[in-house]
């Protein structure tokens, strides 16, 4: 916090700054300032008129309506040209459909290996594999099985012969 003496001193210094700033703030402007500014403004204003909307658009009976119509027409023409150009490009350049499969060319490297006409065979199922090796007991079993089968075959044939005879008799 400032003591009273410090405050007085500060005020004096602040006053010193204010005095200087007031002196500068009260300095008169240079002579002819207004005229120079007016000349600059006049020149800019005239240049601005040259760059304004062409006078032809303001002629005729329409007034501002005529100008508005002309601007709308110009805007419509620009939109038409841009849209037409875009449509022309779009209609000429059709996107090609992407191929489903890519056919690879048959490439035979000169001097390289060939398949020598070999054809690939598909892998088939392997036959039944015996789990136990064939022994004498299994051979005997097989023989009895064969005998039984032969006997049953004979019986069947005899039966069949009897049926045929009975049919013949019946006929």
């Amino acid at each position, binding site marked *: 916090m*400032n003591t009273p003496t410090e405050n007085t001193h500060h005020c004096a210094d602040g006053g010193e700054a204010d005095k200087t700033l*007031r002196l500068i703030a009260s300095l008169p402007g240079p002579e002819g300032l207004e005229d120079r500014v007016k000349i600059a*403004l006049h020149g800019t204003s005239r240049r601005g008129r040259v760059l304004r909307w062409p006078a032809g658009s303001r002629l005729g009976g*329409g007034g501002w309506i005529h100008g508005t119509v002309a601007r709308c027409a110009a805007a419509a023409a620009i939109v038409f040209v841009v849209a037409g150009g875009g449509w022309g490009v779009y209609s000429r350049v059709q996107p090609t459909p992407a191929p489903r499969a890519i056919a690879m060319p048959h490439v035979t490297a000169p001097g390289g290996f060939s398949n020598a006409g070999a054809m690939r065979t598909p892998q088939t199922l392997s036959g039944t594999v015996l789990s136990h090796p064939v022994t004498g007991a299994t051979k005997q079993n097989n023989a009895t099985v064969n005998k039984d089968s032969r006997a049953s075959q004979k019986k069947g044939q005899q039966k069949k012969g009897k049926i045929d005879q009975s049919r013949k008799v019946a006929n």
Partner: protein
Amino acid sequence: MSAGQTVLAGWMEIAPSAVRDETRQDVEEQNVAALVDQYASTLYRVAFSVLRNTADAEDAVQEAFLRVLRHRDTLDEVRDQRVWLIRIVWNIVLDRKRRAKTRPETDDIADLSRVLPANGLSAEQRTAAAQHHAHVLACVDQLPAKEREVLVLSAFEELSSVEIAGVLGITESSVRSRLFRARNLMANLLNHSRSLR
């Protein structure tokens, strides 16, 4: 008169609306010219208090009025034209000051000794006064921007604290508190520089 000549005559005829536009434009230019007569000097002083160079200050005033000319259609909507104009030139000079390099104190002394009123002082006294003022201004430049801006604008007697608030776009209480801080800081800076000497 053939039909073509009739159409041509109708086309070449100047519409009343065009004449009205011209008249309105002339009136607006006259309004801007009246503003120049009334406020050019004030704007110059505001510009000079920041830029401290006569040519730069004059350029800033011209630029400010060019901006006014561009927005002359909206002149009627401006409530306080003086504050509005000062605000325009204030923004211009701050922008220029930001872009320009810091001026050496010797330039300020030379410029000030040229523009300060003589008041019957000798050449030596004038140089000494210019040195003193340049030193004070160098201290002002050391202040923070917010405080400096308020202090500089408060030196213009024609600007009230409400108008300063309008120029800076802050509240009146902010103007007062910033001004108080600026004066304290200024006193400290001047004391410090004095003790160094």
